[in-house]
């Protein structure tokens, strides 16, 4: 039985009715990692021994008849910018290539208390800055559907691992599309939750006002299960909202009749690849068949979302990354004669080019010279973009767009700057958005659509995705060649 191919829901049922043990499931995933990791490079750290030990412990609990969480025993990969106590958490940077956190992120505590099995820490763009995983200090991750292509980023390792069967589920983080873009490129489901739905405590910050941790899985049900586990108010994160969350998986419904889906014309005026356009158009037709009301809507400021995002995220990042100074943790240059040289050499030697360029942009945007014309102007535009969404949601329940302009492109392509142009607006407005596979292109590369919802209305976009998935199926796990 190739257990690594099972969805979390299937595996959970098998474990529950004792058709397989957690150890067997874990071993199957670990063997798959051994088999394909040298091709995919999804992981920075693989926790094989810990995972197997943990798996046996969970089996013992099951043997004792303990009532466990439905996700107990499910192997999960964790993006390497989420703090795991005692396990290297590098954020794919030379700066943190020796950093072992003494504490767990809140989401890790939740995963541990549900007795999920952590397979390892997945690769990403350095400090989550990128859309291809190529800015990783360690290595680029490859797209399991075609090893010459990028898996997308920054949660490229998390999406590739799930796509390739090297994890059943994974956690990513999304600041401007970092869950949805790689999910689209790798043909998996990825949810960026509403800002404030999931605790960021322990997530190594890129841009604090935009970052959210979210689930990646091969099915909508799996994503809903993991989201239900990780969401909720946290005393350690003042930006989490204290609202009641239901069980998103149990409440999944494929009856989406009379749901109205807005189609923002502006997204289709973008430089969209024809095959992507065709797939999305077909998906919209499918939704009509499923009984949805399709409405054309306008999000006219979307064309400014990308520069707005670039300024705000860089500004916050420049401040968030000040703490990497060679004093408390991480890398320290060995070449310095005084404090200033230690700061400058440490940071210049250990940050990659992309990180440096964003720090410079952000530092400038917040400086006396740049504040009004760049940071403040971008904040004004962010406000405009948000209010356009609020207006749009008076007319529809959810908004459907492409996730990316193209399918995955070749590694080494000078990273297409516009990779995030469909995804950043949801972050700027703090809205939940999901990527759902909606077909393959002529090269058999996955295409993704994005469904954006109202704040804290993850259930609606999960249902919309669930209905489509029920009708059209999921992407087959690729042969890794």
């Amino acid at each position: 039985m190739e257990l690594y191919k099972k969805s979390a829901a299937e595996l959970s049922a098998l474990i529950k009715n004792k058709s397989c043990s957690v150890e067997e499931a874990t071993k199957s995933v670990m063997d798959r990692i051994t088999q394909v990791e040298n091709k995919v490079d999804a992981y920075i750290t693989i926790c094989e021994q810990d995972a197997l030990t943990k798996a046996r412990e969970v089996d013992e609990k099951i043997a004792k008849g303990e009532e466990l969480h439905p996700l107990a025993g499910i192997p999960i990969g964790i993006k390497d910018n989420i703090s795991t106590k005692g396990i290297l958490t590098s954020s794919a940077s030379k700066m943190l290539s020796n950093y072992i956190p003494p504490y767990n992120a809140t989401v890790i505590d939740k995963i541990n208390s549900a007795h999920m099995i952590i397979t390892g820490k997945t690769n990403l763009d350095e400090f989550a800055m990128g859309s291809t995983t190529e800015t990783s200090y360690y290595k680029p991750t490859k797209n399991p559907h075609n090893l010459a292509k990028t898996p997308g980023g920054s949660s490229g390792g998390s999406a590739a691992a799930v796509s390739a069967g090297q994890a059943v589920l994974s956690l990513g983080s999304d600041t401007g599309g970092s869950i949805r873009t790689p999910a689209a490129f790798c043909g998996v489901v990825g949810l960026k939750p509403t800002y404030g739905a999931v605790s960021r405590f322990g997530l190594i910050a890129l841009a604090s006002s935009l970052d959210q941790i979210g689930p990646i899985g091969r099915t909508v049900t799996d994503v809903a299960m993991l989201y239900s586990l990780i969401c909720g108010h946290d005393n350690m994160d003042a930006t989490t909202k204290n609202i009641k969350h239901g069980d998103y998986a149990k409440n999944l419904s494929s009856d989406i009749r009379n749901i109205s889906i807005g189609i923002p014309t502006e997204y289709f005026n973008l430089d969209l690849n024809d095959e992507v356009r065709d797939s999305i158009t077909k998906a919209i037709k499918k939704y009509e068949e499923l009984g949805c009301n399709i409405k054309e809507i306008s999000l006219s400021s979307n064309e400014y979302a990308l520069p707005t995002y670039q300024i705000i995220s860089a500004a916050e990042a420049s401040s968030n990354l000040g703490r990497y100074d060679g004093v408390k943790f991480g890398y320290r240059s060995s070449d310095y004669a005084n404090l200033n040289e230690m700061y400058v050499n440490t940071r210049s030697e250990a940050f990659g080019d992309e990180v440096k360029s964003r720090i410079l942009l952000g530092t400038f945007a917040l400086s006396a010279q740049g504040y009004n014309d760049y940071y403040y102007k971008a904040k004004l535009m962010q406000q405009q973009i948000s209010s356009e969404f609020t207006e749009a949601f008076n007319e529809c329940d959810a908004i459907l767009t492409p996730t990316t302009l193209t399918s995955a492109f070749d590694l080494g392509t000078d990273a297409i700057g516009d990779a995030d142009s469909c995804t950043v607006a949801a972050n700027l407005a703090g809205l939940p958005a999901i990527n759902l596979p909606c077909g393959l292109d002529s090269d058999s590369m996955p295409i993704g659509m994005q469904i954006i919802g109202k704040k804290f209305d993850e259930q609606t976009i999960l249902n919309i995705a669930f209905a489509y998935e029920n009708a059209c199926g999921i992407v087959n796990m690729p042969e890794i060649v």
Partner: protein
Amino acid sequence: MQINIDQTSKLAMLKIDKSKYEQLQNKLTSILKSVDEMPRMTEDLKVLDADNPMELREDIPIDDKDRLSRDELLSNAPQVQAGCLVVPKIVE
């Protein structure tokens, strides 16, 4: 507008390789240009969101037995001496 890389990198505690100046300058300039071309929303920025108040933390200190030890907290520090972090000598 252009970014003065010397000045900005000094603020950011970074040293930029001269060989990378041009490429970097082009990249940053193109982002700034797209912001320059963006319309400026005249509406005032709402800096205070009273509808989204923050829950404050009760003033209760952590129990000594629950806190991380100094060794754990300093375990990642590049240089430690007498329970302190060490930095190059600062002359005041």
